[in-house]
């Protein structure tokens, strides 16, 4: 998840507030180092990893990587912001400072928009954990250089980005590179168990479903006087579409992907509605605070997708499916339950001891690399990203959008060249407000 848990004020207050705070490691990570990999550590080959994007989730991914085996070491880090890179490094240092696994000398810390190239060059595996707008170019570079990849979802914010990822995916396949995409439900026991049962026809043919990411408020970072417009957008990236893609994509892609996965198809069309009902201030950039989309699949199944980031409302983050034989309810908290059409429980997953899916996806990536196998999540990562983009196109325009039109859309949000000297692709008006899509008026591009 790219969503950052850091609250808007915390960077200001942390200095004072946390002074005197005890820095300690919980027993969790120590205890979670897999024993099975310790034998491998005797070998001389270390797997070199670069981290691109050093926020909270990037740091988490780096922890996951270093916990995936003592034969793995972090050799390079890149971020556009020096403070984020240094915070990330200091957290890693507190946990791994006395191990050979953390091996990032000062000249392997790369600050700036091009830092990802130098970091990638030094590694066997790259962790691409930036805001999603950057992902297509980072991925393209990594596969050109023959690197294995972990990349967070979504993998793009627009259709041109999705096409870049699909094209690069062909190169990755040719080079037999491992590519894991951070749609971690695909690595979660309850989802895998349910997929097996779907294939076993325990709920019959799926005819409909409802997928939800309805939560309360989300973090937002205030503008500071010293920020340029570009720096402000980069720091408050969630609210700018070229960087984030809106929450129907950035968060809710998880549920849309589950629908695609369980149905074994991608939607052929989408129509829906959405808007900015509560989160209207300029500090919330361009994105909507709610979307509701109907996705229709080639077999006729219809999935209703709803996502909302409004405080004080009903919350639900889960997926429900109705089949000809039964109904399924499943969520990321390791729950899954199948009932027959009379509400009798036919199967209930016990997920209390299930592994951390963020660790699991990284463990499987490195195990595949060690064994010379290939995991390649590029295709579904890109296409579920496109399904999210398609849903956004539907709510922004108020039109019915079909899959091919979405795939071939020329609506390009991310500039080819990005550096501190460019003007961001979206700018505020004289009052500080950003252009906001208006259904019925916003054109389909």
């Amino acid at each position, binding site marked *: *998840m790219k*969503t*950052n*848990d*850091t*609250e808007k*004020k*915390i960077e200001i*207050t942390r200095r*004072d*507030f*946390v002074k*005197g*705070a*005890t*820095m*300690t*490691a*919980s*027993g*969790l*990570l120590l205890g979670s180092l897999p024993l099975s990999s310790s034998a491998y550590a005797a070998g001389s080959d270390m797997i070199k990893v670069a981290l691109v994007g050093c*926020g*909270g*989730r990037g*740091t*988490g*991914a*780096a*922890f996951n990587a270093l916990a995936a085996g003592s034969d793995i070491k972090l050799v390079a880090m890149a971020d556009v912001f020096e403070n984020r890179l240094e915070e990330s490094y200091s*957290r890693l240092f*507190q*946990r791994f400072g006395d191990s050979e696994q953390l091996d990032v000398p000062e000249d392997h810390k790369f600050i700036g928009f091009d830092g990802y190239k130098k970091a990638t060059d030094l590694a066997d595996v790259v962790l691409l954990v930036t805001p999603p707008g950057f992902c297509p170019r980072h991925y393209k570079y990594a596969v050109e250089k023959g690197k294995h990849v972990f990349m967070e979802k979504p993998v793009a914010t627009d259709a041109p980005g999705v096409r870049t990822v699909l094209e690069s995916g062909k190169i990755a396949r040719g080079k037999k590179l491992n590519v894991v995409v951070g749609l*971690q439900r695909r690595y979660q026991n309850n989802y895998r168990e349910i997929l097996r049962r779907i294939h076993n026809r325990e709920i019959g043919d799926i005819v409909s479903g409802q997928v939800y*990411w*309805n*939560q*309360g*408020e*989300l*973090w937002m970072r205030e503008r500071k006087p010293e920020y340029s417009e570009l720096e402000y957008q980069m720091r408050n990236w969630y609210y700018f579409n070229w960087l984030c893609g809106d929450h129907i994509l950035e*968060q809710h892609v998880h549920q849309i992907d589950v629908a695609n996965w369980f149905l074994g198809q991608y939607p052929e069309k989408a129509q829906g509605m959405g808007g900015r009902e509560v989160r209207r201030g300029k500090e919330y950039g361009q994105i909507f605070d709610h979307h509701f989309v109907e996705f229709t699949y080639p077999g006729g199944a219809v999935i209703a997708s709803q996502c909302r980031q409004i*405080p*004080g*409302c*009903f*919350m*639900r*983050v*889960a997926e429900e499916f109705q089949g000809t034989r039964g109904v399924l309810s499943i*969520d*990321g*908290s390791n729950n899954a339950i199948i009932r027959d059409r009379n509400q009798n429980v036919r199967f209930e997953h016990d997920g209390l001891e299930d592994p*951390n*899916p*963020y660790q699991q996806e990284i463990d499987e990536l490195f195990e595949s690399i060690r064994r010379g196998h290939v995991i390649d999540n590029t295709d579904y990562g890109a296409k579920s990203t496109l399904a999210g983009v398609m849903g956004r196109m539907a709510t922004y325009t108020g039109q019915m959008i079909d899959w091919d039109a979405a795939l071939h859309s020329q609506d390009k949000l991310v500039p080819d060249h990005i550096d501190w000297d460019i003007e961001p692709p979206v700018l505020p008006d004289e009052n500080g407000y950003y252009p906001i899509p208006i259904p019925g008026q916003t054109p389909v591009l």
Partner: protein
Amino acid sequence: MSGNNHTSIVKKYVTESVIPAAALLLLVFFATGCSKLFGTAETDQEIPGAATEHEIDPDFAAYTQNIHGSEVTMDMVPVQGGTFTMGLAPGEEGKDSHEGPQRRVSVGSFWMTSHEISWEQYELFHLEVVEKEIAEEQLDRFGIEPDAIVTPSPPWGDKTFGMGRIGYPAVGMTHYAAVVYAMWLTAKTGEFHRLPTEAEWEYACRGGIYQNYNLQGDAMALEEYEWFRGNSENSYQKVASKKPNPLGLYDLKGNVAEWTMDEYHDDYHDRLDGEIADNPWFKPDVLYPRAVRGGSYRDPAGDIRCTHRRGSDGHWSRNDPQIPRSMWWHTDAPFVGFRLVRPKETPSREEMMEYWILPIFDF
């Protein structure tokens, strides 16, 4: 900030339901002597003499705490201090070695929130409100650093775990978040609030001076008073929707487990000092484990008891994808909530500061 559509419901609920019910029950107990109303499986419990010595102190009565700037209120129930036998007696059903050996413990008087802090009460805790409305002198009075009251970062996801929001107990917050909430409430109300110690919690759960309410092994009674695995349908339930204990406190043993002020020690009872341990408190200096009391909607009937205790664990945040893990939310602890106490004797500023525990990053 958030919609206020729920507050009228809460207010109605509180004024029409909770207070009269609690008051009525208390009257009934004073009038009849409460022991016969509750199946007392714990017949070996001493009923301390405090019950007869205790005169009603007009300044120590139930009241409703308003929270400035909102319509949400908090019902506070007086718990007259006393000396009690803490821990499970040897041989009691469900005995856990961490719940004994029994010791004599005394606790001071305090008010306790009548029920687990609800989502409506918890969600008031926003930085915007705090910054604008709490004067620095107010913070200084309590020894609270202005920077120390920060709002929890919002969780990404459904903090209710699909179990409902309006009228339900807030869950999943870290121990630190519960401590800062108490700090925030202190600054908002001008009255010192904190989490209960383990000793205070167990004393209140057992019915304070009445000390007869454990209902161990009485499944029929349990059903009337508590939410647990057998009747919860694996979901937390609305606060105060079962019967209260003799003091008018709801859901102590069940519904959701509750944070206390203590670090968790397996050998808690062995660590107590003196013939009668006086207001024991083990101040936390590690992130895990911290003491959680009572059972939850997930626990079997056998764990629904006043002595039930467990320590928090890093596992409760195992699905947090970020490092450090959230200071504010456990991704995997939908069974833990909290309630607060307000000591009858307001402690000194220095003593209060002992309770404002600093955060420890969770790597």
